[in-house]
């Protein structure tokens, strides 16, 4: 009799199958610790055999970028705050037409070592840089996370906003090579300690003044967060590691309206953003995804659904990430969203999204149908071949100027201590480059130079042409190492066009302005972004590879609503377009 009744309890093998399935389902739909869902790698398809002309060499040391970026423990991370790292920016702070470099920095639990600070490097226009941090007034020590760039006061000089665990900072560019911390006078002091994460300048109400959106990662408190192995979400593959983000309280995001007088007002509640979204927000990108002329906001969220706030044109936003298909994986699983690349990989004139995740999950490519609705094309695009590493800063950028934007991202572990026991989970890992084959698929390029293959524990990265030679170089922030500056030694004869947009009625940085380059029967969209990649900011000059095309037609859509057309623009040059005035002389550097 009892044997029959025991059947009510699952048989051993059935229980095991259930355990395996449950574990698999849990990994599919839930994130664990820092990680996201577990996905299997696609088989690598046969290589196309086509040469890839871009070749990257790390010239950071020769360029003078030798100071290490301090961020938490080197071989062990006791707390998650040591693990996430920070971002960097390519910006032209002195308007000389040459990209300068801004690098954030963290600190250490035991206190900051000498030299731990954010750093500003001025471009010497000869392939080298000079550290001007101190004279620029940008020395700062703390747990910095993200940087976003924008001319919030429309004075012609790009300003900086930096997020911190603690107090975020707004630096006003004084136009004389110095910056001033204006956080307090701008009304951006937080009464409580928050973990500022992603940020972006965005003119959400289209009044010509850049507003500010900040994601907050989670509520962190050294006294109460458990130690590695000591609580929930503090193990990885059976090894004790730093705890979180799962199990820690969510942060709340904030929107600050620019009052046009140098101050900001917190309008989070009025904008409909105050509710506690169940998300660990990281990189923030603002762009007009549904092409209605109003900027929307996308937040890559760690271990939770990513968020897409759609602009309702009345000062409010509505979160629509799930129904628009950019919140989850193709099987509805929450992923560890960290970095975001924005670009038009399909050359259909619409902005797609590439989002990076934790190790053992695919990064995701969301295809935009032009209405702000997205489809997950990760597997179809053959991007699922790479699941080995935690991935961070990313871009959909044309690195070989063939006209088809490629995908590049940096990788690195958040658990440096595990590599001793798990050699397949190294602390330092290579950068990953996928070449766009022009047919909706990508192929991983195994050797695009030592700058790509040399392993580091990277975090933020920024794309820009620091040597003004007509291709995109890459700045990468490495944890507890000097940064990498990957110079692109591009071969071949592919042509290019750079477009710098300057707003007049729109914000002067032209953040949110969109340029459509029409050539060779295709259209590529790009938008000026204040933040993307991972906590970073790219060169504001939009870079279009043109392949063999000698000219391109341009359409510019300004945040003010103005639409401008430019026919037969020549290639291999930078043009500066000022809103309403057309093409104007380039400032500083120019290439004839």
């Amino acid at each position: 009799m009892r044997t029959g009744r025991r059947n009510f309890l699952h048989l051993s093998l059935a229980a095991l199958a259930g355990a395996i399935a449950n574990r698999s389902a849990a990994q599919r739909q839930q994130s664990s610790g820092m990680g996201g869902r577990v996905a299997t790698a696609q088989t690598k398809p046969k290589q196309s055999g086509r040469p890839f002309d871009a070749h990257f060499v790390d010239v950071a040391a020769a360029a003078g970028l030798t100071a290490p970026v301090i961020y938490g423990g080197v071989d062990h991370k006791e707390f998650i705050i040591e693990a996430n790292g920070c971002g960097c920016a390519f910006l032209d702070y002195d308007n000389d037409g040459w990209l300068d470099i801004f690098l954030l920095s963290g600190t250490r639990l035991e206190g900051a070592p000498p030299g731990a600070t954010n750093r500003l490097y001025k471009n010497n226009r000869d392939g080298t840089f000079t550290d001007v941090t101190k004279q620029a007034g940008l020395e700062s020590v703390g747990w910095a996370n993200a940087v976003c760039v924008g001319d919030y006061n429309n004075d012609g000089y790009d300003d900086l906003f930096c997020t911190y665990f603690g107090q975020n900072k707004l630096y006003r560019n004084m136009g004389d090579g110095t910056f001033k911390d204006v956080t307090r006078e701008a009304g951006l002091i937080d009464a409580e300690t928050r973990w500022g994460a992603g940020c972006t300048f965005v003119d959400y109400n289209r009044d010509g003044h850049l507003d500010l959106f900040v994601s907050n990662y989670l509520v962190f408190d050294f006294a109460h967060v458990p130690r590695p192995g000591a609580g929930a979400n503090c193990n990885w593959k059976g090894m004790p590691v730093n705890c979180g983000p799962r199990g820690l309280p969510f942060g709340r995001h904030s929107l600050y309206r620019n009052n046009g007088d140098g101050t900001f007002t917190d309008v989070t509640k009025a904008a409909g953003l105050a509710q506690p979204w169940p998300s660990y927000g990281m990189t923030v990108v603002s762009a007009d995804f549904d092409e209605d002329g109003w900027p929307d906001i996308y937040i890559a969220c760690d271990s939770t659904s990513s968020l897409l706030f759609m602009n309702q044109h009345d000062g409010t936003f509505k979160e629509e990430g799930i129904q628009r298909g950019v919140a989850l994986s193709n099987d509805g699983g929450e992923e560890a969203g960290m970095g975001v690349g924005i670009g038009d990989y399909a050359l259909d004139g619409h902005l797609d999204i590439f989002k990076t995740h934790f190790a053992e999950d695919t990064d995701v490519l969301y295809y935009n149908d032009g209405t702000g609705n997205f489809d997950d094309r990760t597997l179809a695009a053959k991007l699922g071949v790479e699941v080995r590493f935690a991935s961070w800063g990313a871009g959909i950028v044309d690195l070989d100027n063939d006209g088809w934007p490629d995908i590049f991202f940096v990788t690195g572990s958040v658990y440096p201590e595990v590599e001793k026991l798990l050699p397949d989970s190294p602390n330092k890992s290579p950068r990953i480059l996928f070449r766009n084959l022009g047919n909706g698929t990508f192929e991983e390029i195994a050797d695009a130079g030592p700058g790509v293959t040399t392993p580091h524990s990277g975090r933020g990265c920024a794309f820009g042409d620091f040597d003004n030679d007509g291709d995109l170089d890459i700045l990468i922030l490495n944890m507890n190492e000097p940064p990498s500056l990957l110079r692109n030694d591009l071969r071949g004869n592919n042509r290019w066009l750079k477009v710098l947009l300057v707003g007049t009625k729109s914000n002067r940085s032209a953040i949110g302005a969109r340029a459509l380059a029409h050539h060779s029967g295709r259209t590529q969209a790009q938008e000026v972004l204040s933040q993307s990649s991972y906590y970073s900011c790219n060169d504001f000059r939009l870079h279009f590879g043109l392949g063999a095309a000698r000219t391109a037609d341009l359409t510019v859509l300004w945040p003010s609503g103005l639409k401008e057309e430019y026919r037969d623009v020549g290639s291999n040059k930078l043009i500066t377009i000022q809103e309403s005035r057309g093409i104007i002389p380039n400032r500083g550097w120019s290439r004839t």
Partner: protein
Amino acid sequence: MFRHPIRAGLAFLLALPLIASVFGQDTSSSVNDIEALIRARDYDRARGMVQTALRNSPRNPHLWTLEGIIDSITGKTADASKDFETALKLAPDDPAALRGEVQILYKSQDNRAIPLLMRILAQDGNDSTAHEMLAAIEEKQGDCKGAVEQFALAGAATTSHPLSLESYGKCLMQLQRPADAAPIFQQLAAALPQQTWPRYDLAVALADGGQNQSAIEVLAPLIAGDHPDPDAFRLASDAYEATGDTPKAVALLRQAIVLNPDEPGYYVAFTALCLNHESFQVGVDMLDIGIRHIPRSSSLYIARGLLYAQMAQYDNAEADFRTAEKLDATQGVSAYAMDLTDLQKNKPKEAIDHVRAQLRTHPRSALLHYLLAKLLWAQGNQAGSPAMAEAQKEASAAITLKPDLNEARDLLADIDIASSRYSDAEQQSRTALQNDPSDQTAVYHLIIALRHNHQETAASEIPALVKRLSALQQQSLDQETARKHFSLTESKTTQSP
């Protein structure tokens, strides 16, 4: 009632006046005499009178019925059956003959009783005995849905029969209606107060129905008794775990293992606890002990391999899965687990080759069909490609073998979405949600399918689905938080269990 010959005979006797009342005037007196003899248990004289009457009236069904009753009471079952069959040929709806024949067929659980019972019920839909008998036969035939309907119609008749209560409750459990089964088992436990197993069944129903605290209370005497039952410890462990009291759950499971260290199911349950709480090494230590006790249990090797895989010790995992396969080649779980290990090692091509080979050995393993489909799909082949078509075929095969394998159904929806077959994706997702309303993947696929498929009409459904998905995510998070609240510590398992 159905199994006791005397009680069966009494049942027939109760039907006898009905026989007399329908006889003609001439035969009525002899029938009355025969009935009187049967009541007086003078079966030989009764049989003599019947046989005399049959010589005069061989086509009189009532006389055949009476002879059948006498034969039945005197243990001549084969003769009785022939008598009733003859009676029923002459009068197919004769109530007494129907009952007599049913009684005989029922004893051997012969499903030929079913149409006869249906005829009885056609005459009297309120015949609770017939409903109960029909239910019992249907339950034995594996038709729990029909059995439950008949038990319900039998009403109070069932409640006085423990075997019926047991069958009723068992069927309700099979139909995944533990909340309905619990009161049935409650009655069973009251009917058999000296027995412990009804309480155990009741606890199973309560636990499966989410009434874990009640289950714990019901199990308390089974755990505290002089002869503790390790199964009860194991079940109580489940219930405590569900209430969030993991330390108690662990302690009870350890006691179950101590009471019966040769039962692999307890070690497997311990493994499940360790997986839930990400205490992998503790689980490995316990399984080491289990394997020393029962070295030929394939499930223990599978369990340990699974734990090794969680710790990225893939070589150890694979070795255990291979041992399991050698010990019991008929189970398909170790093959499935081995393939998962290949996947975790990021060797998709090897995994595909292995799954294909293992499917030749385990062609009816739904999990392996699903895994192959998943692997083929994950290769990112374009819609319409042969690999995509094969993925779809394998996922369909998995569903055919195991219709509630939602992972395969979700995968099919995924393939449908990638192939722009949004109506098919919608249908798969809706079916998956019928199987499991908490299937987040199915909810998400439904949202995506509706967005593509019926942009206008779906406007009202999508927001509700988004809310539902968000609620499910929150629910998962809460469960995960509760689950991970406790970690099993290694020191407690370094000794014997």
